[in-house]
């Protein structure tokens, strides 16, 4: 089974040691990813989604960071590999598109040289060949007048164009796996749409595996094959995209979805914000780390940490004592409502106002 997956991540942990203790940024994450598939990683700031993608790629080289667990890529174990060994994988096997196209390009080096720098290192080509390849790459990410654009500086391009250059750069050595870390967060909606479509086409054409990291469920909804929702360094729910949207079981996933304003709602519809703040990663709350903000939380949630279990189908897993839509969840919700837990009252108001009922439990 394992041999078929392009990437197998098992119990990956990345901790940063600071004066106050250990920041558990990624705390026991496991998933597999196949070639040609997209995994969406969703969560708030501080949920560990960026650190996760960097840990898989081996980019956490800060002296106070420690990564344990296992990342097997094409049969090779990456955890523990030195940056020197990893260098052979970066660019040619796995590449990353970063969040901010304004700062991830060097402002004093021409676009073309940045674009072809690693091509010349990895592929052993001449300057002329590299240029031809670079122009071809710019064309493939649909930059008009690619030949002229090869010789401009980043500030002469718009944000969307710069992000396309970053994508071209990531694709330059034909990687097998692409990490896109919030690739469109800094961009306009129209440009976001273009960039996401572009990533999708490139992925399809090159049969790459892709990890798309974002805080917006709307971005991954139509584009990822599978979605992993992260909270406090852990995956709290993971399912194929359609299943996840049809029957989400973790209260956090539901809360994330509810907090997105929708154009179908009339104006001034009250949004269901998630109460409270993301947890402290040095001393996370006992039990389930979402429990202080959760409308379904009962005393057991504060005492016992739920494990990631598979529900109805074996491809849908979640870590919750009182899953949304289950009899246990409903019972917990009703009890909290009776006791007047603030976040439960808010959630009840939302359900009443929008008739956006939680999906019912099957089987």
């Amino acid at each position, binding site marked *: 089974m394992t041999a078929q997956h392009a990437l197998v991540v098992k119990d990956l942990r990345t901790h940063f040691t600071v004066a106050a203790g250990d920041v558990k940024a990624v705390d026991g994450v496991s998933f597999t990813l196949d070639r040609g598939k997209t995994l969406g990683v969703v969560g*708030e*700031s501080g949920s560990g989604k960026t650190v996760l993608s960097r840990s898989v790629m081996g980019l956490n080289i800060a002296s106070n960071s420690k990564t344990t667990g296992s990342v097997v890529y094409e049969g090779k174990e990456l955890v523990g590999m030195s940056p020197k060994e990893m260098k052979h994988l970066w660019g040619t096997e796995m590449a990353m598109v970063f969040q901010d196209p304004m700062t991830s390009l060097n402002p004093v080096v021409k676009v073309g040289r940045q674009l072809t720098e690693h091509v010349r290192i990895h592929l052993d080509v001449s300057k002329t060949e590299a240029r031809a390849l670079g122009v071809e790459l710019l064309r493939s990410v*649909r930059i*008009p007048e690619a030949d002229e654009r090869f010789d401009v500086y980043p500030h002469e391009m*718009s*944000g*969307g*164009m710069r992000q396309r250059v970053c994508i071209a750069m990531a694709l330059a050595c034909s990687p097998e796996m692409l990490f896109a870390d919030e690739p469109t967060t800094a961009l*306009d*909606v*129209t*440009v*976001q*749409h*273009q960039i*996401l*479509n*572009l990533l*999708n086409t490139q992925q399809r054409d090159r049969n790459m595996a892709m990890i798309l990291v974002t*805080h*917006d*469920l*709307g*971005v991954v*909804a*139509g*584009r990822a094959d599978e979605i992993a929702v992260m909270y406090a360094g852990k995956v709290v729910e993971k399912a194929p*995209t*359609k299943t996840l*949207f049809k029957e989400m079981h973790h209260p956090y996933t539901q*809360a*994330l*979805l509810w*907090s*997105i*304003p*929708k*154009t179908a*709602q*009339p*104006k*001034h*519809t*009250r*949004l*269901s*914000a*998630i109460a409270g*703040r993301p947890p402290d990663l040095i001393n996370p709350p006992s039990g389930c780390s979402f429990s202080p903000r959760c409308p379904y939380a009962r005393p057991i949630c504060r005492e016992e940490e739920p494990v990631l279990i598979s529900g109805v189908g074996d491809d849908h897993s979640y870590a919750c004592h009182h899953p949304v839509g289950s009899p246990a969840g409903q019972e917990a919700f009703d009890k909290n409502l009776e006791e007047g837990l603030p976040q439960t009252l808010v959630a009840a108001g939302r359900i009443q106002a929008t008739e956006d009922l939680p999906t019912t439990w099957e089987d």
Partner: protein
Amino acid sequence: MAGSGTAHLRPLDETLLRIEDLVVEFPLGGGRVVHAVSGISFDIAKGETIGLVGESGCGKSTTGRAILQLPKPTSGAVVLNGQNLAGIGNERMRELRTDVQMIFQDPISSLNPRRAVGEVVAEPLHVWGPAEKDAQWEKVAKMLDAVGIDPDVARYKFPHEFSGGQCQRISIARALVLEPELIICDEPVSALDVSVQAQILNLLEDLKAQYGLTLVFIAHDLAVVKNISDRVVVMYLGKMCEMSESDELYANPAHPYTQLLLESLPIPDPDVVLDRAVSEHDELPSPINPPSGCRFRTRCPHADQICTDVEPTMRRVNDDHFVACHHPLVPVEEVAVGVN
């Protein structure tokens, strides 16, 4: 350069703020000029929220700042409470700015990192508020409390000790402390996570009701704008495309650009088909040398010769909905009214 027309403006006495044929240009040297805003007109009634939407570079922030005369517009009128701000002196403008406050996009960099939160929020009061420190603190505490920050905890803390959402709350408290009538929110939630964004939007709605505020809400996310605004102005490259009551705008967009923006929105539903009309070749033309006629024509699927030759002016779809387009997507009154 002609504006987009003024057919959509309401009588002056019904409005708190009226912007008429606003032009803001920035000289580049060598005779070149950035046409940031080229003839925008809209008005806001008291207690209303108006949303300004458009892509980066459409002039929405410049419009917001021009209301505060920062910088002074090249031409056009900004009428606040019946008074044209264009003609008045600097000293009077300084006083009037207490009625109009601003909230900025990046909550962390818009707070001074070296000053404690109590100080940051009290600063407007040093100039305009009561002289006694205790009376100032009382007001500051009340405002911090109103935005959901514990005043006694926050008073001596510094901005870096707070999260982005909390910093934005502090910025809102600072804007409110002089009890302004109008607040200009320049992309106040763009830098925040969806969950925090919802908190801030709810907070703005609450404060608006509590203090009877009027808001100008600038954003590029149409879903956010729809949620908070009574009326929405869609801008493109310094021009107005469409102005409408917000539910109407989303149900019946009349301008092809509005439709493009709506189609680009990420929708949290996996069943929505994604191969929509957005072309991957689209680039915003330069505001230094904008296209003739309709500025959107270079990206518009409906554009023809008239769009190149004649600039469209605002035409009426219904009483709450106006569009500047030669080929609108919904029927409009044929005669262009109120052409300058």
